[in-house]
């Protein structure tokens, strides 16, 4: 009952295709679980396909209120009881984007159950359109009517492009077919075009809900199956664009004709996009100008490789020649839209690649989990255009201890290799300046190392250079082939800010914590466990420090001391937080953060004697503290860095200059400390100055 009108409506060619598709074995079971998203917080759209959690076919894009609105058909796997091998759509969603990168799904706007004249279980909500006239939004859609055969076209209206839409009680009289498209001319006159049999068009009444005058068959179009008209006006020309099967037994191209009148006659001009190489039978499109760039929206069966009636919307740029003709658009994976470098960059949607590079599903049973790029051998490369580095160069320097040290920006990549290899990210192309080198060692021996061959791993690397502005990345495999899922540039948290040579003294923070210190580069002191840091161990270890130090005096920023044959420098730092993350201090210097001894010192300037105060400190791991050369506190054993973990006996801060030293030792933990002085009431001492005057 239901199949008949469909078969009657469709041309012989489509019927042939249908029979062809029926002859294939489709594994529809794969579509039972469609709900896996890419990793949380990482997904950025903007590549093709543009919507990653559902199917989106026949994408009609319109620009309303400075945003792009997308009104696609919503392909779904056919529910039980419906034909399993045919198009199946029960509702429409609308999406919007301001940057063509992030798309907001505003949800369902019309469902088949709420169309007054439609069949509640027709599953025939095919390609729609939406236009704005006089501030009101008119959504045109085909549906199977409750009575009769074939398709009718209805209208739903709303005050906003995302709805809510209200369906008109009856379909548009005189329109029998599919794929409605409406052109509102500069003079306000609207025209409607549709397919299903010969391509037809008509004037729309001023109310946008009725035909005004007769239906015309579009003249001047080429022979061969056509559907999906999309009409628009540009540079004084009217364009009628449409999917077209140019060869007997072929699949759809996108083609176009031009005219100086809205309803033709038309002059056929040629192809906008060739047939899909994988024989995805349909294509369906719209053309829109947004922020000075013309865009072609079209579809392809990316997420459904074995069944071409579950399709996904793409965007690529479209350009006109001077005479108004349209240049052919070659479909890309990359699509349009700029990626912030700090968002997840799905490089499997590459812009270009070397010979032999392919891409593959992350999970062929759940294609919505996306793809990864396969760079088969050393030297293979891919490029990815339009990555915006924003202010990363500045942040890279700001968050470093010194300009020449490890920077504040790093690369994260999800990669896989079968042998030790290196992923190299370069600017612009395979010979461009190196941004980062990421070693992928999968065959390390011994200890806790596991065989990571063929395993996905998330790795980080420091940057060798930081690009500026918007540019192209090139990912190159070195040493061996690699697979890459995504890249991301991340900015480290702020740990320290630098202290200028003649900076004025600081004050303790509002809780009394001393944040300005001179910290010595870490001294290697391997220890497998923190439980060995007994009082005896510490007293012995610190009785004769491994370098010449006088706990009564302050070293100077940049001063070097010789420790075990190595020269280590003192650094003046201001911690960005209440505690001093020594682990990160070493890390930012590119030095060993574990199994080391840190030494730090600071000056406390007082206007008068402050008696009866205590040093309250916490450290990870054990620590020893000296005030003006006197040992005042020992935190021994397996310590956590806890605020006020231990306190000294009552001491006096004397008028003028006081020197505070501390030594922190750690095994495999993350070294840090916090220190403040507290008074008799336990209140922080804040009325002092920290640092040399």
């Amino acid at each position: 009952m239901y199949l008949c009108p469909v078969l009657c409506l469709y041309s012989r060619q489509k019927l042939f295709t249908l029979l062809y598709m029926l002859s294939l074995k489709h594994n529809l079971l794969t579509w039972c679980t469609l709900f896996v998203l890419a990793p949380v917080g990482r997904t950025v759209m903007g590549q093709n396909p543009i919507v990653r959690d559902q199917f989106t076919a026949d994408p009609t894009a319109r620009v309303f209120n400075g945003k792009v609105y997308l009104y696609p058909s919503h392909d779904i796997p056919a529910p039980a009881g419906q034909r399993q091998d045919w198009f199946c759509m029960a509702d429409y969603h609308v999406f919007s984007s301001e940057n063509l990168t992030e798309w907001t799904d505003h949800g369902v706007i019309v469902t088949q159950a709420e169309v007054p004249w439609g069949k509640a279980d027709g599953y025939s909500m095919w390609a729609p359109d939406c236009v704005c006239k006089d501030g009101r939004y008119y959504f045109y859609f085909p549906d199977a009517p409750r009575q009769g055969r074939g398709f009718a076209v209805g209208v739903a209206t709303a005050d906003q492009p995302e709805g809510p839409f209200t369906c008109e009680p009856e379909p548009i009289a005189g329109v029998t077919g599919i794929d409605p498209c409406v052109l509102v001319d500069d003079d306000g006159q609207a025209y409607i075009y549709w397919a299903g049999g010969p391509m037809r068009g008509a004037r729309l009444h001023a109310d946008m809900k009725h035909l005004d005058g007769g239906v015309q068959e579009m003249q001047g179009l080429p022979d061969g199956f056509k559907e999906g008209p999309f009409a628009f006006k540009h540079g004084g020309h009217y364009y009628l664009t449409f999917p077209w099967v140019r060869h007997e037994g072929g699949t759809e191209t996108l083609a176009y004709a031009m005219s100086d009148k809205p309803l033709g006659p038309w002059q056929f001009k040629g192809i906008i996009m060739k047939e899909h190489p994988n024989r995805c039978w349909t294509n369906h499109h719209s053309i829109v100008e947004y922020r000075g760039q013309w865009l072609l929206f079209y579809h392809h069966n990316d997420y459904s490789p074995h069944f071409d009636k579950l399709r996904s919307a793409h965007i690529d740029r479209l350009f006109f020649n001077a005479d108004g003709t349209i240049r052919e658009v070659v479909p890309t994976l990359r699509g349009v839209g700029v990626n912030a470098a700090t968002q997840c960059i799905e490089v499997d949607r590459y812009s270009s690649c070397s010979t032999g590079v392919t891409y593959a599903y992350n999970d062929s049973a759940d294609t919505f989990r996306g793809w990864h790029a396969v760079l088969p051998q050393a030297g293979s490369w891919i490029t990815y255009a339009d990555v915006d580095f924003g202010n990363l160069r500045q942040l890279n320097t700001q968050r470093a201890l010194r300009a020449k040290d490890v920077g504040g920006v790093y690369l994260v990549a999800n990669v896989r290799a079968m042998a030790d290899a290196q992923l190299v990210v370069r600017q612009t192309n395979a010979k461009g300046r190196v941004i980062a080198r990421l070693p992928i060692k999968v065959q390390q021996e011994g200890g806790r190392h596991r065989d990571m061959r063929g395993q996905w791993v998330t790795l980080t690397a420091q940057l060798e250079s930081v690009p500026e502005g918007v540019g192209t990345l090139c990912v190159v495999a070195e040493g061996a082939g690699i697979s890459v899922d995504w890249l991301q540039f991340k900015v480290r948290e702020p740990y320290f800010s630098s202290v200028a040579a003649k900076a004025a003294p600081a004050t303790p923070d509002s809780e009394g914590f001393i944040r300005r210190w001179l910290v010595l580069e870490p001294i290697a002191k391997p220890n497998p466990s923190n439980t060995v840091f007994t009082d005896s161990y510490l007293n012995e270890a610190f009785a004769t420090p491994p370098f010449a130090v006088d706990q009564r005096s302050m070293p100077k920023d940049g001063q070097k001391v010789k420790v075990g044959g190595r020269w280590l420098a003192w650094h003046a730092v201001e911690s960005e937080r209440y505690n001093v993350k020594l682990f990160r201090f070493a890390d930012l210097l590119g030095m060993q953060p574990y199994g080391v001894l840190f030494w730090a010192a600071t000056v406390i300037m007082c206007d008068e004697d402050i008696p009866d105060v205590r040093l309250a400190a916490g450290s990870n791991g054990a620590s020893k503290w000296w005030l003006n050369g006197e040992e005042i506190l020992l935190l021994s054993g397996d310590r956590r860095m806890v605020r006020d973990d231990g306190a000294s006996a009552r001491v006096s801060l004397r008028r003028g200059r006081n020197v505070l030293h501390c030594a922190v030792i750690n095994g495999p933990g993350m070294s840090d400390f916090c220190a403040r002085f507290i008074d008799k009431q336990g209140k922080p001492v804040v009325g002092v100055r920290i640092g040399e005057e």
Partner: protein
Amino acid sequence: MRPLALVFFSCVCLGAKAQTGAPYIHDPSTIAQCDGKYYTYGTGGGGLISDDGWVWHSGAERPGGGAAPDVLRIGDRYLFIYGATGGGLGGGHNGRILTMWNRSLDPHSPDFHFTTPVEVAASDGLEDCDAIDPCLMLDPTTGRLWTTFGTYFGNIRLIELDPATGRRVAGNEELDVAIDCEATDLIYRDGWYYLLGTHGTCCDGVNSTYNIVVGRSRSVTGPYLDNVGRDMRQGGGRMVIAAGDGVCGPGHFGRTVLADGVEVMSCHFEADFDRGGRSVLGLRPLLWKNGWPVAGERFRSGTFEILSERRGYALELAVDFVRLQQERQAWWRIDPDKPVNPVPYQQLSQVADTWPQGAIGVRCGDYMMRPHQHWTIVPVPEAGGCLGGPYCKIVVEGTERALAATATLELTTVPVFNGAPEQLWCIQQLTDGTYRLLPRAIPGKEGVNTTYVLYSVADSTPTLAEWDFGTDNAKWNLKPLPQR
């Protein structure tokens, strides 16, 4: 710190400072129940099963490996969450938090099937977080599902999941709520959210310094402060449990509410001294003191006064009070220089003959240090137990006369303990530190009794009645007798 070594255990039965059976596990998930059995899952995959909550054995199954899982029943499904290390090459801090569902915990059930794991959070190895050791908390006030995760490597982070899907709530941002913890857990009680974290060092056997601390907040998003107002982001935390009683290194807290006022905490002990220093499952009563959770003590056998919380009377055999003889002097005639002779306590042998031979009833009365008021409580090893404790017999000290439940929901004593279920008692410490005592079975009633408890229906009259934490009638104090 946490060396990323996974610890594997074999099954050997030794003494029982913790659980009996083969309770070898690290980072046990909060105890989950499925079809009357108890389950807990540990680091590295797999987990333990118990039929009764006391005898544990291996056999629970969880794929995915990784660290410190948690399991929560939501509706008719179980949500698993775990941290997968392995992002890093050679043990870095690249972690991933994954969730998956199962309709059953029983590997032999036809419903036992895990869904494909879904990533809900990750750490890249360089940031101040290590995305492993997750927990699950369904907020009873809002129905929202929360997870904290992280280790000593930086911050403990809070995220929100969708309880319908187990996925991250769209747009949810990670929030730092603590530093320097491992195996955190979130719980809600009485208007407070509690964040429990493990401090110290694991995986160093009998030298592991692991201990569990807690902070609390009126909001799930914190700040979590300890009892002196210190933020857990500054290392704050009040001790819940540390080493003691032959075990050390408690870690990975979990809370199980058995009934109103009856709570059990689960953890592992890094080392059980009686079991060669192996890491074992620990179950302890969970007590609440001034709004803070505190681990109760493992129940130790011994001889006790069983005192009603209602009146303070002692449970006793309903037998004749036998007066003690004493050489008495009028108080105004006491000669302080005259040497004193201690009065001997009444001995069982002095009174036993006065007791009837058969069943003897029980009652409560003023405690007078008499043999009919002294009860020896010892586990019955072959009888199994209830969650966290063994079934015990309760006998009059020096005899085999055992306290038993009757079919009419009253109490009696039988002359000789014979192992019948109505003579076996589950002894559970309550959140306020008192105890409830449940007979394993009521004669004539099917199944294990979880309803009827020893109850003061009048000051002097103990009976069995339905559990009600709201009344002192249902609560008892077990006061160990001093060595005599």
